[in-house]
């Protein structure tokens, strides 16, 4: 009986540990956007963002797909022909794990494509979509 109790505690601790391992840098980044006012993430909105043809930013790059490829799995190319790894987390597990990098590119790419900075909500939606991919 006592043994079973210890076993259960160990198990739940292990489970907690596993969960906290889940809560890695990506989750911290999402939490950061939440703190900036983002609500629960909606992957469908992130998908719409990825596919949208904005045309309100720079003429050369009307959509996210212009550089990141037709699908998140495909991978893309910069305008200077340098390959870009796929955005889908299943294909590129270290996506959205470096806060500085995420901030830098959201700033650049949102201004470049949409013509304005993205909201915290848009950022979590976008990341949430890529995590499901």
């Amino acid at each position, binding site marked *: 009986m006592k043994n079973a109790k210890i076993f259960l505690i160990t198990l739940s601790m292990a489970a907690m540990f596993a969960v906290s391992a889940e809560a890695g840098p990506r989750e911290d980044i999402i939490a950061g956007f939440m703190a900036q006012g983002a609500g629960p993430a909606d992957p469908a909105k992130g998908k719409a963002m990825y596919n949208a043809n904005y045309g309100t930013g720079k003429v050369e790059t009307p959509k996210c797909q212009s550089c990141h490829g037709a699908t998140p799995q495909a991978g893309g190319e910069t305008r200077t022909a340098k390959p870009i790894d796929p955005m889908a987390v299943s294909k590129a597990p270290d996506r959205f794990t470096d806060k500085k990098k995420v901030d*830098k590119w959201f700033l650049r790419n949102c*201004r470049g494509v949409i013509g304005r900075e993205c909201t915290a909500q848009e950022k979590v939606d976008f990341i949430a979509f890529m995590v499901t991919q």
Partner: protein
Amino acid sequence: MSDNPTQNKAETGRESRLVKVWDLPTRVFHWSLVSMVFIGIITGYIAPEWWMGLHVWAGYITVTLLVFRLVWGMFGSEYARLETFTFSPVHILEHMKEIISLRPVRHYIGHNPSGAVMIFALLFVLSVITVSGLLVLGGEENQGPLAGAASYAISEIAAPIHNIFVIILIAMIVMHVSGVILEGKLTGENLVSSMFTGLKRVPKGTPPLVHRRARPFAAFLVTATFFAIGGSLLAAFATMPPSGLRHLPANETYETECGDCHAAFHPSLLPAKSWADMMATLDDHFGEDASLDAETANEIALYLAEYAGEEWDTEAANRFRVLDPKHPMQITATPYWVRKHDEIDPETFKRKGIGVKSNCSGCHTDHYSGRFDDQKIKIPEVKVK
């Protein structure tokens, strides 16, 4: 000055006969020089620039041949010796007059006076061409033994000299060949085949010839000494770091941040003002937002200013300092870039491994050093995409 002892005046009535005139080293020298000059001219004018390696080697071999010829001119067999074809000006003029008026000329067993003038002129012109070539190689391309000694400014003087003397050389080759043909017509001699066989037919009545023999050992000693001294001098020069090529310390921030979208450009490719303007307008960088946080941007701006084009004396840095006023931040818009790449088919830039014309690394394997040597150009062949 010596009148050729074998020049025929006495009549003895004997039959004409073949004598050995050109010794083997002289003949090998002659045809090797012909090949090297031919290679040099072809690779200099016609072949694509990355054949420059061959051009430079033809130059080095030419220098070796010239040195050998001068030494052999002292220690070779009779007709190889410079003194046997050093004639007085009066003598030379007389001979030229004979040729021009197409009168049958007197027979010379060795080189005739006009030919001799041509030989000395060729030796001189070839020396100028090889020395100026070495200066261009060192100053412009930062290669070869004079890379450290020759500045870009010197190469700008040496380059036109090199070109003009090559034109002079070509004119002289034309004269030399016509002279050989003409002389053949006038005297009935086949000078070309003599240069292969070494044999010449002497007219009947030529008295027995007294030939001095070659002194190969002495020739070898002198040549070896010359190359030992010349070689170590050049080797000493070669240890000087190439002038104008500085050491560029790696800067990780620059390489990663400015290498995100394209390979980071060598800082020497644009002048400081262009870099400063570019760093101030990163939010609109060639139709792209490349903005950076202030601290990172500042670090990169300092690095670029320190190693900007003004700080280098390479050919690329010197040339790209002349900008297109309409696109002062674009290397590929500079007049020199446009001129150097205008023969490349636009489709070539789309090849896999290149993509766009600004991707220097696609074709220039030494782009990271800022040298952009002719020999380091490799255009990817496969035409995919």
